[in-house]
C-alpha cells in the first residue's frame, strides 16, 4: 500500500472517529494525527527505560479519549501518552511514558484494585486499516497488551470468527473462539518488557523481533508504514476492559535504514529468544554488517529465483 493511500485512510478514520466522538459528546481525540517514526538503530535496543537512546529520541505526545462506542462506556475524560519507537536489524522497540500520580498494581486481596495498563494495536496486514474497535473478520488487528508491573501479552482480535476450526487449530488457537480477542499461542508471546515507576511517571519499553513468524502477527518492515492505535487503562479510576481511553489510528513509519541496509525488505523469520536483547549488547558491530550482507545476498537470490519461475512456466 502506498503512503498516500495510507495517509488518506488515516485521515478518513480520524475524521470518522472525531465525528463519532462529537456526536457521543466525548472529547476530540485526533484532531491532528500525529505521526510516529521508528528510528533505525545500528546496534542494540536497550530494554532499560532509563537508557540514553530513549532520552535522545523525540517523543510524540498522543491524546487519548474515552472509549464511548461499546458497553461499558467510559466516563468522559482525556489522557496522554508519550511514545517513541526504534528498530534495528532484528528487533523493534517502543518506549512509552506517561504521568500517573498513582502506581496501581495487583496485590493479594486487591478485589477493587486494577493495574495500570497500556496497549498498542496494529493491523495484522499493513495494507489495511481495520475497524478501530479491535478489527473485523476480514481485517484483524494485532495487539500488544502490557499490564503493570510486568505482564505483556500478544493478542489478536477480529479474526477469530472468520476461521474454520481446522484453520484455527493450525494457527495454534483453540478450536472455537472463546472471545473476540484472543491470546496468540505461546510461541508468539515474544514481547519482552521493562517498566519503571518513579516520581509519578511510568516509563515502559517493549521489544519484539520485527519479523513475523505467524500469519496473525504484524511484521515491522524497515521503511514500512502501518497504522497504530494506543490505549491506556488508569487503575485508580477502575479502568479495565472496555473502560479505557484510546487514540485514533495514527501512522507508524519505520524510517528507511541507511545505505547498505535498505534492501533488507523480505520477510525473514527471526528466531525468537527472550534473551535476545541482552545478547545483542554483547555482539560486536561487525557481526551485524556480515549478517546484513548475508541477508542481502539471500534476499537477492530469492528475488532472482522468484522472478525466474513465472517466465519458465
Amino acid at each position, binding site marked *: 500500500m502506498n503512503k498516500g493511500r495510507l495517509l488518506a485512510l488515516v485521515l478518513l478514520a480520524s475524521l470518522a472517529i472525531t465525528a463519532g466522538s462529537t456526536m457521543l459528546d466525548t472529547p476530540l481525540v485526533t484532531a491532528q494525527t500525529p505521526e510516529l517514526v521508528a528510528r533505525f538503530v545500528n546496534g542494540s535496543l536497550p530494554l532499560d527505560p532509563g537508557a540514553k537512546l530513549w532520552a535522545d529520541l523525540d517523543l510524540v505526545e498522543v491524546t487519548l479519549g474515552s472509549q464511548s462506542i*461499546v*458497553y*461499558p*462506556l467510559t*466516563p468522559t475524560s482525556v489522557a496522554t501518552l508519550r511514545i517513541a519507537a526504534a528498530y534495528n536489524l532484528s528487533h523493534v522497540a517502543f518506549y512509552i511514558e506517561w504521568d500517573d500520580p498513582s502506581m496501581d498494581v*495487583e*496485590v*493479594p*486481596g*486487591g*478485589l*477493587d484494585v486494577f493495574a495500570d495498563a497500556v496497549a498498542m494495536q496494529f493491523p495484522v496486514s499493513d495494507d489495511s486499516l481495520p475497524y478501530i474497535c479491535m478489527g473485523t473478520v476480514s481485517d484483524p488487528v494485532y495487539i500488544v497488551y502490557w499490564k503493570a508491573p510486568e505482564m505483556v501479552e500478544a493478542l489478536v482480535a477480529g479474526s477469530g470468527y472468520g476461521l474454520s476450526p481446522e484453520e484455527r487449530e493450525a494457527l495454534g488457537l*483453540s478450536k472455537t473462539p*472463546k*472471545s473476540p480477542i484472543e491470546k496468540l499461542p505461546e510461541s508468539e508471546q515474544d514481547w519482552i518488557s521493562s517498566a519503571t515507576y518513579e516520581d509519578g511517571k511510568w516509563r515502559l519499553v517493549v521489544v519484539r523481533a520485527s519479523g513475523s513468524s505467524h500469519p496473525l502477527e504484524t511484521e515491522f518492515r524497515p521503511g514500512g508504514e502501518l497504522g497504530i492505535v494506543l490505549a491506556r487503562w488508569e487503575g485508580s479510576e*477502575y479502568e*479495565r*476492559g*472496555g*473502560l479505557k481511553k484510546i487514540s485514533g489510528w495514527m501512522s507508524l513509519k519505520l524510517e528507511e535504514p541507511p545505505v547498505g541496509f535498505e534492501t533488507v525488505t523480505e520477510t525473514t523469520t527471526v528466531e525468537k529468544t527472550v534473551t535476545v536483547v541482552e545478547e545483542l549488547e554483547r555482539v560486536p558491530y561487525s557481526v551485524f554488517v556480515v549478517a546484513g550482507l548475508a541477508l542481502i545476498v539471500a534476499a537477492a537470490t530469492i528475488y532472482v529465483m522468484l522472478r525466474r519461475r513465472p517466465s519458465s512456466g
Partner: protein
Amino acid sequence: MVRAQVSMVMVLDKCIGCHTCSITCKHVWTNREGMEYAWWNNVETRPGVGYPVRWEDQERYGGGWVAENGKLRLKLEKDGNYKPPNINDYYHPFTYDYETLFTEELKEEQPTANPVSLLTGERIDVRWGPNWDDDLAGGDVYAGMDPNWKSVEKEIYLNYKGVFMFWLPRICNHCINPPCLVSCPRKAVYKREEDGIVLIDQVRCRGYRYCVTACPYKKVYYNWKTGKSEKCIFCYPRFETGQAPVCTESCVGRIRYVGVVLYDESMVEEAAKAPLERIVEAQRDMILDPWDPEVVRMARESGVPDNFIKAARESPVYYMFKKWEIALPIHPEFRTLPMVVYVPPLNPVITTLDRRGLYSADYRDVLPIIDELRIPIRYLANMFAAGNEEEVRKALRKLIAIREYFRAVNVEGQSSIEASRILEENGLSREDADLMYKWLAIGKERWVIPTSKKELRIGIARRG
C-alpha cells in the same frame, strides 16, 4: 418457550445458624488461595449488616436493575459506577498461628494462637468478619445498620424487650434475569439452557469484575489469585447426577428444599419490569402448572425432557412458591427474578402466660395474631416482598393455619374434616396440609432432582 429452572426454598424458621452449609461449601469449592474471603454460601444474622457489609444497599454497591420508562437498565451502567467492593467490605481473611500452642516455652500463662492474615501472612488485629454480628457479638452495634429497617421504628426492636433475630443463609440465586450475565462484556457468564444454573466460564473470564458489581446479592467473588471471578455453581456435578448441593445435603436444620419449576420465557421481561407492589405476584405468574396438559405440551415442544416435567410435578419449590405462596423471593425489587426463595420466619411462638394463667391479648386462642408477632411485618416485607406487606401476611397466615389445623386435630381432638375449615379459610386443602407436614415438619423428600443426561438435552433451544 417453556424452560426448566432449578430452584431452592429455605425455610427460615428451621435455620439454627450452625453454618454447616457454609463450611461444607467452603471445603468442597473455595478452600483455595485467592478465595479465602469468599463464601459462596454464607449465613447472616438479622437484623444485621450481612456480608459484604450492607450488601442490600445498592446506593453503595450499584447492583441489580432499574426500571426506567418501561425499560430495564443495569444500575451500574446507569450510574456509570463500575467499582467492585473492597476486601474490607467482605473481611480480611485470617487464620490462627496454631503452631505457637505447641512450640511455646513453658510459662505462667497459657500460650495464645494469634490471628494471622491469609493475605500477607502477618499478624493482624481482627476487627470484622463475615458474620461478626453473630459470632463475635456485635449485634448491638450492627443490628441498627440493617437496610431493611425502612419505614420501621427500629428503636422499638433494638431494646431488650422488643428484640428479635433470625438467620438468613444465602447462596447465588441463579436468577432468571441475571445482571451478572448481562454486565459481562466477554460473555463469560452464562445461564444453562437445561436447568438455568448460572455459571462463569473460567476461560472466557478476564477478571473485569463488572459481574461482581452488577450482582445485587454480591454472590460473585473475584479470585485475586487466578484473576477471574467465581460464584456458586449450585453443585452442578452433583445436581446432574440427582444429588442435592452440599449445602442442602449437610443442612442440620433440614431447611433447604430443591426442585425444578417450569416457567414461561415470554413472561420474563414483564415480570422483571413489574411495578414493585406486584413484582412477587408477577414472578409467581411466570411459573407454570406442570399438571396443565397445555404446559406439558409446550414444555415438550421446547425440548424439556420428560424427567424434568415429572420432577416439576413433585417439586417442593413449586408447591411452596407457586401453589401455597408461602415462599418469597429475596429482595425482588432488584428485578433479577431470584430463584432461591424463602419461607419467612414466624419467629418462635411466645408461650408466656399472663397473671391469670391465660395467654396474653396478642393471641387468638393459642396461636399468635400475625401483626403481633415479634418480627415486624414491614421488616420482612422490605426483605422479601419489595415492601408489599400483604405478601408476607399471606405466607405467615398459611403457616399459622397449618399449625392451627394440626393442633385442632391432635390436641383438641377434632376430626380432620371438621378442622379442615381452618385450612379452607386460607386456601389450603387437607392434601396440602399432609404434604406440608411431610416436608416442613418431618423434612422428608426435601429434594426432587432429575438427572441430567446429555442425550435428553439435545432438543433444548439456545437462549437468545
